[in-house]
């Protein structure tokens, strides 16, 4: 009979713990006293040693799972022993507990573990209640952006309401004569407004500004522009190059290529970049999926096509969601630095600024160089300041040696 591995109870008030690390793999030999797993409460981190000897037959919770205390999280048994059926497991477990600890019968009933449920994974659709969906449509917010608080990870109405900006009381003015013109806000405008407001009011955000020597980018741009081949290289812009560099850098900083969802962060394996586009209908942010897998030329061609579709208003709505990080470019409009607003539940956004000439000191001389500005805004709940700075540092380094990046 296998021995259950129990999540210990640390103190009277603790009801659940986060299982942080399994130190043994399923199938691995375990001896008494071996470090078996680590877990944490909101106060401290603990290591748990094995009290049994055998083979780790099965683990019932994954690293990162929140587990009620005194719940069976795995099984140790003899080599070759089949773990009981997962479903039968919990039932057998209860029987066994009674058999071996008759004295516990009168104790407070133990919380009972349900069979393990699959955790939400990347790509799983967002679960939202019908009421939440209806409410989101009514107030014009995207329920997918909400942090789920309902049962079974469901977005419920209160989560949607949390996205909704507080509406100021309506002020009725007496109008003698019209000195102004009123226009109903477009749906898109309202949506942008709501999202921006939610992001602005909810997110503790930090913006870091930096710049880099864009000489190499400009040189390359010149050469590409002159290209007359049919490869479509002449259309590659500075912005495309920045996007390309971001896509090659950000996976080293996974907390920025992520969604913050209530109690968990969803870290993405690929880079889907939101590209902010200024259109007559207002701001649109199409998604450039799998940016990290695309060549510079493909990056340029695809983004150009998406921008055009945004202007034409015929972009597939599927392309207006799913981004993991956003790049917005105000450089052509001469902006030197700004503080862009994060598209929730993303954790960061990169603003690309104009190029200004700066001087740098080299061998005692001041040499002018074209400096391109970057502004990184991030959600401090998910990303620390130094993490953001490290991302910017790696990014600017790559941009300054862009031709090397292309060789990778």
């Amino acid at each position, binding site marked *: 009979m296998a021995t259950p591995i129990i999540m210990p109870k640390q103190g009277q008030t603790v009801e659940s713990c986060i299982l942080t690390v399994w130190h043994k793999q399923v199938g691995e030999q375990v001896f008494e006293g071996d470090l078996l797993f680590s877990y944490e409460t909101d106060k401290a981190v603990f290591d748990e040693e094995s009290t049994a000897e055998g083979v780790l037959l099965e683990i019932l919770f994954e690293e990162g799972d929140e587990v009620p205390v005194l719940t069976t999280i795995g099984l140790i048994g003899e080599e070759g022993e089949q773990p009981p059926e997962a479903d039968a497991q919990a039932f057998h477990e209860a029987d066994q507990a009674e058999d071996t600890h008759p004295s516990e019968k009168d104790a407070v009933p133990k919380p009972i573990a*349900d069979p393990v*449920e699959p955790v939400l994974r990347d790509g799983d659709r967002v679960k939202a*209640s019908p009421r939440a969906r209806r409410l989101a449509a009514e107030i014009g917010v995207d329920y997918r952006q909400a942090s789920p608080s309902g049962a079974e990870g469901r977005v419920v109405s209160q989560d949607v309401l949390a996205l909704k900006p507080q509406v100021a009381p309506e002020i009725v003015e007496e109008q003698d004569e019209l000195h102004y013109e009123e226009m109903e806000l477009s749906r898109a405008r309202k949506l942008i407004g709501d999202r921006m407001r939610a992001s602005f009011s909810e997110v503790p955000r930090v913006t870091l500004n930096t710049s880099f020597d864009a000489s190499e980018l400009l040189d390359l741009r010149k050469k590409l522009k002159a290209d007359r081949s049919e490869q479509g290289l002449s259309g590659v812009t500075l912005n495309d190059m920045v996007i390309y560099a971001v896509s090659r850098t950000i996976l080293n900083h996974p907390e920025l290529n992520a969604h913050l969802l209530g109690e968990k962060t969803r870290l993405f394996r690929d880079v889907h970049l939101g590209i902010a586009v200024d259109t007559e209908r207002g701001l649109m942010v199409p998604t450039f999926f799998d940016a990290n897998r695309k060549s510079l030329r493909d990056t340029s061609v695809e983004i150009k096509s998406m921008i055009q579709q945004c202007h034409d208003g015929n972009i597939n709505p599927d392309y207006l969601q799913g981004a993991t990080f956003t790049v917005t470019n105000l450089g052509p409009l001469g902006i030197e630095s700004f503080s862009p607003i994060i598209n929730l539940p993303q954790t960061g956004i990169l603003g690309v600024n104009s190029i200004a000439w700066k001087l740098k000191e080299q061998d005692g001389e001041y040499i002018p160089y074209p400096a391109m500005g970057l502004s990184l805004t991030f959600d401090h709940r998910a990303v620390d300041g130094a993490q953001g700075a490290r991302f910017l540092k790696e990014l600017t380094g790559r941009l300054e040696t862009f031709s090397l990046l292309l060789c990778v």
Partner: protein
Amino acid sequence: MAKKLFIDPGEMRKSGQIDFSSIPVNQYNKTVQDELENLSKEDLVRIYRDMAIIREFEEMLYAIKTTGEYRHTPYDYPGPAHLSVGQEASVVGQAFLLDKDDLIFGSHRSHGEILAKGLSAIEKMTAQELTQIMEDYLDGTILAAVRRIKDGTTAVKDLAITFLLYGTLAEIFGRQTGFQMGLGGSMHAFFTPFGVYPNNAIVGGSAAIALGSALFKKINQKKGIVISNVGDGSLGCGVVWEALNMASMGQFRELWDGEYQGGLPIIFNFFNNQYGMGGQTAGETMGFDFLARIGAGINPEQMHAERIDGYNPLAVIDAMRNKRQLLEEKRGPVLLDTVTYRFAGHSPSDSSSYRTKEEIEAWQQHDSLVTYGLELVRFGLATEEDLQGIREAIVELVQSVVKLAVDEDISPRMDLPGDPDLIERFMFSEQRVEKMDDRPCEVLISREENPRVQQIQRKLRTKVEAGQSGLRTFQLRDAIFEAILDKFYVDPTLVAYGEDVRDWGGAFAVYRGLTEALPYHRFFNAPISEAAIVSSGVGYVLSGGRAIIELMYCDFLGRAGDEVFNQMAKWQAMSAGELQMPLVLRVSVGSKYGAQHSQDWTALPAHIPGLKVVFPATPYDAKGLMNSALMGTDPVIFFESQRIYDVGEMFRPEVPEGYYEVPIGEPDVKREGTDLTILSIGATLYRALKAADILEERYGVSAEVIDARSLVPFNYEPVLESVAKTGRILLTSDACERASYLKEMAQTVSELAFDDLDAPPVVVGARNWITPAHELEEFFFPQPEWMIDAVDAKIMPLEGHSPKRRVSRNTQIIRKKSGL
């Protein structure tokens, strides 16, 4: 249970023997000539005519079923045709002396009974009466169709005969101009103005219904007798035996008073055609050998049982004359074994593989139509030409009736294409009738003199706090009693009966005080015969009375399955609204007594169209709903719970002493809240309220608790309104969770409030187990903690809550997979 009857151990233990008297077998031996003393020549010829009409009618149906036409009128009739070709003498003989006040209840093979009884009634009625009936019935719809072939010069009796044949055939063919507008069909056709009461497609179904009708006649001192016409095969059915026994209860003679003393005016007639479908009753499927023998086992009078020759109409008439005399002398009930034989199969699809050709041919040699005709000729009462003339006229009549009945314009079907919901209006009668008769109510004492009433007067009728119930409080059982007692002083036809109701006061003391108030004939103990109790209730009320019957435990409902599901539920609609069913069936959901005494079976009657179902949980609601049930004309299954008979009123300021109603179908908000709706059925209300307290105190969740009070009908609006507010709903009752009525409610809420829901509606019922011992019931019936766990896991995570039960999806899937 009757203290009047002393059970003497000396008598009980005394040695002796039981003596039976002889049971007559086919002892009639008169000729047509002899009968001229009793019957006129015209009567004797009319017997032939009536038999010939039935023969032609059934032959016509046989032709249509087997050849698709009758005398060149093609017609495709896919429905049932259980024909009685060969049995004509038995039905004509039975009906011959009966009139419209004598009621017959038949079987699936009753076309002949309808026609025979109708023809007999027509013969005895005046032209004016007949005209009135034909003009009134279904607002003259049937008469209008008949007028197409019978103009104003037709004699009223002839018109009525055409009316009878046409109304029956149109009903068989499912036409709107049929007696039941096509909602009954072949096996359920009837015509009450001629004393033909519902025929029943359930074998033996009529026996206890007829018993109830006889009770109605006796208790309300109505003219006429009642006949249960079922087949020999029905003696395999429990309800038939229950009916024989209950109709023979000793109390009719020993305990009922005055003019009510004496036997029931009922004949249990068995048309003994030797077969129950294909099973041969004597010799194969039964042990009685002679069916009449069983009368000897039922009561000391042996039910005056007799075998009579159903192939001789005169023998049957003679027997009916004698037996009717017995019934009028209050010496009923009577049992008749009427020997007969059908030439056709059980139905036209039957190849008679269970009997030989020789046997059929031998009986055809005895064909009553032929032999009786020969008798008439032999004694010079008719010539062969006369008889031929009669037969030809009948063929012509049946031919014209068939043409009329298959004419889509004259005999249309119910207009469901034009109004697909038409049948809805027949499911309930929805009348408010305070009393079914105007005569004074027979009671023994005034209401004020009643000891229970006096006791109740000392009780607090005002609102009590939880847990404060006690002997000084007006309890739920008092509330039900009060509504019923009051009605006994209003409706003279009201009767209440069931198991251990008189003297004992019912197993749960609801009826304590009724014994003092009511004479036996209004309030009596029934045998432990759930099927007969319910079916006799059905017969009692469809004959014109109002009744409350009682089954003690809900778990005994299964014993009355057919009677509740097929009889009580169906007759209003199957009669196209002609019959009403003001019948209240009390069932009590138990606890403490284990698996066969603790079940909430509300889902069963609620599933069956045609029944109203209520389950009050407070004294105020119990009295108000009982008043509504006793004011209406629809069948109501009135659920009670033994857990809460002693609760006091906790929600209303007081329970009024006077009359008031709680409308059937209206749920009631028992506690207001904003975050979660809890809808409960029955006694679970109090645990739902406890859960609401915990949610409030421990988790800051404000729960609204709605008491369903009724299941069918049910107004969802207050629930939807609540869900629009809260976005969440949990449903709970003591019924086993699987397929409980809560599931129906949850599905309806999902559908109607889909866009309001923040979580799926979640049902918390009892486990899908047997009920364990009382000490372990908390592991079986829903508890407040279960509700909290379900809220946390499926509706809204409750901060700091850790469930004590397995409630996840996977658990649910695994349990369902295992049938648990």
